């Protein structure tokens, strides 16, 4: 953990007393959490608890009712260049009229980066997620898992050091999901970025995260913050059969079921 921290380019993200309501309904209340540079945290909670609302608040897409989000010591007012976003629904987030390469390079174009440079960078990031050779395909020519990789590549190309992912593997089949979990873990290690994943899948959360944050209640608050001490090397078979893994999983499950 500590050696990745030192090398990470990511800034620290801190959430202070965040609250969010729609009309009279309070969804989130008094949320405090932090995402350290290079850290991987998962946010779990029963469905409908407001996980997506939290992620939208953290990405600057929606205004807060109270509290603040600090990134690198400064308060976030609108979406930042440090933060990349990956949604569950890849069909809705990739643009079907753009080829894969253009989809990945598009946010760079918004930054005003020259065409040759942004295409280079996009191709590089596509290679990072194992999609070299798919540059000239349209998204709908790719499988769901591949499309989600494109979405991840786009966030990486944007030079986002903090990756926020909303149920990123929720629409994929089990097989693809496992391989993408490992892909994201490897990316984190290789690129030394911070990642926050919102998921309803407890196994996924415990398997991937350094820390699992459990959200519950109406309005939702952080009810537990669990350090997952399973080491930095994770393996789909050995990690998931580790007795500590089972223990962590049961602890989270108990919190959510109660």
């Amino acid at each position, binding site marked *: 953990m500590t050696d990745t921290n030192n090398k990470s380019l990511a800034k620290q993200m801190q959430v202070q007393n965040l609250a969010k309501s729609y009309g009279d309904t309070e969804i989130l209340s008094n949320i405090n959490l932090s995402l350290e540079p290079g850290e991987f945290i998962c946010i779990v909670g029963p469905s409908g608890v407001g996980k997506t609302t939290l992620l939208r608040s953290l990405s600057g897409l929606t205004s807060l009712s109270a509290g603040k989000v600090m990134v690198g010591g400064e308060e976030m007012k609108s979406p930042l260049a440090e933060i*990349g976003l990956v949604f569950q629904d890849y069909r809705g987030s990739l643009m079907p*009229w753009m080829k894969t390469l253009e989809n990945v390079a598009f946010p760079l174009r918004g930054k005003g980066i020259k065409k040759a440079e942004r295409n280079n960078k996009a191709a590089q990031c596509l290679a990072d997620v194992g999609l070299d050779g798919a540059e000239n395909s349209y998204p709908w020519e790719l499988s769901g898992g591949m499309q989600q990789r494109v979405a991840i590549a786009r966030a990486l190309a944007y030079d986002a050091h903090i990756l926020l992912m909303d149920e990123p593997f929720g629409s994929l089949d089990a097989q693809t999901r496992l391989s993408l979990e490992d892909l994201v873990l490897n990316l984190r290690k290789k690129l030394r970025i911070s990642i926050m994943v919102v998921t309803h899948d407890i196994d996924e959360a415990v398997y991937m995260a350094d820390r699992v944050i459990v959200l519950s209640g109406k309005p939702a608050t952080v009810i537990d913050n669990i350090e997952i001490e399973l080491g930095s090397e994770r393996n789909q078979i050995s990690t998931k059969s580790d007795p500590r893994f089972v223990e962590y999983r049961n602890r989270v499950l108990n919190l959510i079921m109660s």
Partner: protein
Amino acid sequence: MKAVNFLPQWLINIISLWTLPVLVVVLWWFVSADSSSFFFPPLKNILAVLYRDLASGLLTSYLLVSLTNMCIGLAYAIVLGVLCGLIIGEFRALREATSPLINFFRSIPPAAIVPIVIVAMGTDSAPKILIIALACFWPNLLNTIDGVRSIPVQMLETNKAFRIPFHLMLWRVLLMGALPQILAGIRIALAAALVLMVISEFFGASEGVGFYIRDKKETFAMTEAWAGTVLVGIFGYILSTVFLKIESWLLGWYFQKTPKELRKLDPAK
């Protein structure tokens, strides 16, 4: 089906598609061949007159005038309608604020203002272009608004999170996302443009295909009036067929490479 196995599929297709239309024309030809009725001249004569006036350049130059008016009017309507539609569609408050007004204006039959505009502005091109542009503006505007609204919220939010600047958002995301509906709007506008072109030339003109038909009717030259009407029909058919081809070509990504399915997707086709 086994009985016709010796014919290739494309030939069967052509035969089943074209038999009836050809039959109708042949039937018209022979039934009208000996017609002495003033109202229904022989098809042979109609086509002969059509060829004569096209070859002499009279009808060709009229067609060119009509086409030019139509294209200019349509172009104004597309540019303004799509631009306003993208902006109104993108901003909810603007959309809500303008919807009653838009609904009112689009229900006014554009032909109704033909006399007002032509009497005030004269019989040359400007009033006709104005009328065509006005008639074509509403389908373009409404379809563009619908198109922008059909873009998934997540796509807009993703682009917002990546801080895509407004001009890039406008023509790379909103325009492209709304393109299927925009093209459908242009298809509707194309039909409206043709109708208004004809009506405005019926009402007051000294040239154009509509003028030709009305002028021949007034001098009781029935064969010529038929020839002009047939020309407008053929012209309308070619326009809409060509546009459908352009549409499926432009929307390859939307139909995911199955433009042949186009016909099945939309009842208007």
